[in-house]
Structure formats: C-alpha cells, structure tokens
C-alpha cells in the first residue's frame, strides 16, 4: 500500500504558530497507523501567516490544530481502506 504523504511545514512562521505541537500529535498517533504515513518536514508551503500549515497528499491545509490534523489523516486513511476493500 502506498503511504500517505504528510508534509508539515517547519518554517519559522509555522513554528511560531505551533508546528511542533502537530509533529508531536503525529508522533503520539497510534503506532499501527504510523507505518501508513510518510511524515516529512518542509521549510515553506507558501501560505505563511495562516499557519501552522500541513500538506497532505498534495493538498494544503492552513490553521491546523493537532486534533484537526489527526482527524484529517484518519479520514484519508479510511478512504484508502475503502478503496482497497469496498464494502
């Protein structure tokens, strides 16, 4: 299965607005899901000032909070599962 690409901006503007809390939330995310994720730190997603920003599978999300990030990742993973084994 292709892993889900999650790019967390760790640029200074996003860092100031809490990017580290997002990385920590992903770290604490259930381990069996960790393998399905490809977590990368990027230096800028060109949406500074509305941070912290995250790009998931090519789509940029702004003003991301830890809870919101986990919810979005979960919905992506769920979609992928349904594609693999349709109900």
């Amino acid at each position, binding site marked *: 299965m292709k892993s889900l690409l999650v790019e967390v901006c760790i*640029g*200074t*503007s996003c*860092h100031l*607005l809490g990017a*580290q809390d997002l990385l920590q939330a992903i770290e604490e995310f259930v381990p069996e899901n960790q393998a399905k994720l490809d977590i990368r730190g990027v230096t800028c997603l060109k949406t500074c000032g509305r941070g912290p920003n995250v790009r998931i599978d090519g789509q940029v999300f702004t003003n991301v909070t830890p809870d919101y990030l986990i919810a979005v990742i979960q919905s992506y993973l769920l979609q992928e599962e349904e594609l693999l084994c349709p109900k």
Partner: protein
Amino acid sequence: MSQVTEVVKIRRKVLSEIARMAFAGNLKENVEEILQTVVTETGPRYRCCVHKERAVLKDRVNLALCQPINTSLAISAENALNMEFADIPIVSVLPEACDQCPIDKFMVTDACRNCVAHHCINSCARKAIMVVNNKAYIDQSKCVECGLCKKSCPYCAIIEISRPCERACDLEAINAGADRRAVIDYNKCVECGACKTACPFGAIGDRSVIVQLIQMLKNSDKHIYAILAPAFIGQFGLKVRPGQVMKAVKELGFYEVHEVAFGADITTIEETKEFAATVPAERAFMTTSCCPAFVGMVEKHMPEMLEQVSSTVSPMIATGRWIKNNDPNALVVFVGPCIAKKAEAKKYPDDIDYVLTFEEMTAMLVGAGINVSEVEDDGYQTIASRDGNAFARAGGLVQAVVDATAQMAPDVVVKPHRSEGLSNCKAALRQIKDGKIDANFFEGMACFGGCVGGPGTLSDYRVTSRLVDNHANTAKITASPENNTAVEEIKKGDNWHHGH
C-alpha cells in the same frame, strides 16, 4: 512553553504583524489593521463578541509597543517609532482581557447528594454551610476558606478553586482586586512570568520593545550586537542548526551575533574565585546570581539572605561588558527565554540596551520574512566551553562551578544543592541556612528545567535540555577556566562584580 494555545497564537500574531509593519515602514498608517486581521468577523470566537476581542487586542498591541494600555493605537505607534518607552511595568495585567475569575475558594458541585451524615455541615466551625434546594450551600460571607468541608465530604463534592495566576505565583504577588480583576503587587513581583504562562485568557503580558529596536536596526549607525542566551539551542526544532539561527538573526540587521555562553564562562570563573575566597571563611554558603527572578526573590522576600548571593554578574551582563569593552560604539541586545532579564537589564543600562525573548525575536524574523529553516548553516562553532553552554539547563551552573573549582582551587570542597521553582528555592535556602541540607553552594532557578523552561521559549524544555547537552558536547573545551579568551578578558579589568 510546551503548547501553542490559541492565546499564544494571538499574542505571537500581534508581535509578528507589528514587526512586519515596522520593517516595512508603514506601522503608523496600518497599525489599526491588526485589529481586523488578527481577529476577523468570521474567525473563531473566544469571547462574547468581536468588539470585546478587539478591545482585548488593542491592549495587547499597546503592550507590544511599550505604551500605556489606554493609548490610541495611532499615537502608540508614533510614540514607539519615535523611540519612546512608556514607564510601564515589565509584567502587567491587561484589564480588558482578565476574565475576573471567581474568587470563592470552595464550591459545592452537583456531586452533592444531600446525604444523611452531613459531614460538611458538622465540620464547619463557622456554621457557613446549610442545605438549600436539596444540596449543601456555602454562605460565602461566613466562609473563612479553611477547607475542612472539602476534606470531610465522602463524595468529594466540594471543590477548591484557585485562579491560575494566583496558583502559578510562588510569591503571592498576584491577587484579585476590588473588581475581581487580577492585580499585581509590584513590591512582591520578581517578573518571573509564571502568571503569564498560566493565564488561559492571556490576560497577563510583558512589555515589548521590538518596534524601537527595529527603528534602531534601520536607522542607527551604532554597532548593534545580538547576544543569544545558551537556551537558544533547539528553540527552532530538531532540524534547525545553531549556525542557521546565528545567521538568520544577523540578517535582521545586527552587526554581529554572539553567544551568552561566552559570558557564562566569565561568570563561572569569577564565581568560582569568589566561592573559594569567601566560603566558608566569610559565609557558610553561597548562592548563584544568574537567575534574575531568583535574585529578585531573595531581595524582596528574604533580604536577610542577600549576603549569601554571589556578587558575580550574570552571563548576560558579562557578555554585554565584554562586547562594550572591545567596541565603544556597541549597543547590546540580549535575546533569551526570560522576562525577568528585562528587569535585570534596567538595573544595568550601561551594559545591556535591549532585551528580547526568543518569542519576540522569532516574531521579528517572521516580520522580516526570514525563514530560519531555509537559511544556510554557516557552520558556527561555539567559542564557549561545554560548561558555559550547559548554563541553559538546570544543573548546568553547578556542574560548571564544580568543574572550575577542580581546576582552579582543587583543595576547596563544593557541596552543591539546587532547586527549580521559586517556592522550592525559598524552602531549600531556609533548609540550608538551618543546616537541614548539607550544602555550601546553591543553584537557584525560578523556572522548571532552568532557562530552557522560561516563559519566552518556543519549544518544550524536555526536548531542548537534551539538545542543549548535545550542543554543549560539541564544544572544543570542557570547563570554563580553559576558555583562554574569557581568561584574557577577565585579566583586562576587574569589573565582574556588583554590590547589592
């Protein structure tokens, strides 16, 4: 600061926006815009209405411009741009932001079952508890807040409420005023910043001088030096290298950027000399003098202990003096994790010109459009010792002085003890004095974790403490007395002490 809450985000956005406008040269024209951009009509709402939020925000902007709370923003901006610093306290309560939290200390919750035994009523010597609507009720006019009812209830139905600011303050310097808004007693406050971190409404803030500094960086022909406290390691996350931070800060317009860890070596050497000369001959024990909130606590709350405090200047002052000794045209800006340093710098106007927290410095970087993670690493190698770098975390100072003593005065016995948190420091000092703790050298740190746990930091101290140690181990020399540049600097003149 471990978590970036909404309150923290708003504060940081205000600082970044102000810095951005100050760098762009349009602060005076556009300052009112902050009220529209940081709080939007459609954005998340935390208070009753958008007007209340903007009123709070106006207080924040004034504080960030170092102007009195009720000034109109256009005037505040103009004053700040004209290098005016209002004589406002370093730490103050934003009256509009304070939610006037309840002051009743004990409250009966819905867990009360109106039981038959009524331990609460029986336990209350003041007869302040009665049953109303099938539930215990505390008559607040009679309650003396002894807490016996809380202890007596088998359902734990009576809870004790304390205001976060009051609970955070180890020195009882913040209390509810007549209108229930928090009021700081400046005779007791040592500017540690614990209340600022604790208040979930963000109602306590420290004054900022970023606009005045940006003006200097843009217009002054002085050599403006930034000196970074050793705790700067790790503030920008795991991936950002110290060399990137040094270079990024320089790009703000500083003449040179130096480490305060160098001054920490001077402090260590001088403090070790002082220790060897005075303990136990003149005093039974000596305490450190680096943490300004700790020193402030001794000054304001235990003046009888002042004689025990080292007279050696802090690494910040030592670094400032070192730079100014070598460059008469220098202005020195200290950047650190600490709010109390703003108060310390006021006492030493000849050595330190401005103080910023890491948070303020980062807001300046954002405002200037500098992304530290994209700045090239200039491969910076620390010029301080390992021990000087380790000052950033709790225990670093003890280690430095023990190592220095082993080299400089091997016959002297150091029996160290250390504490973090002001009330722990206070208790430990008393115990050492009474002989209950066998120690002759005491390291006092107001913040948990030491400087890396300060209120002006950007990263969790448990992470940064580790990174500080990793960085310290890259130093080419181990103990402070091996730092020849520092030793030479000390030889130039004996001005590394102060009287209290």
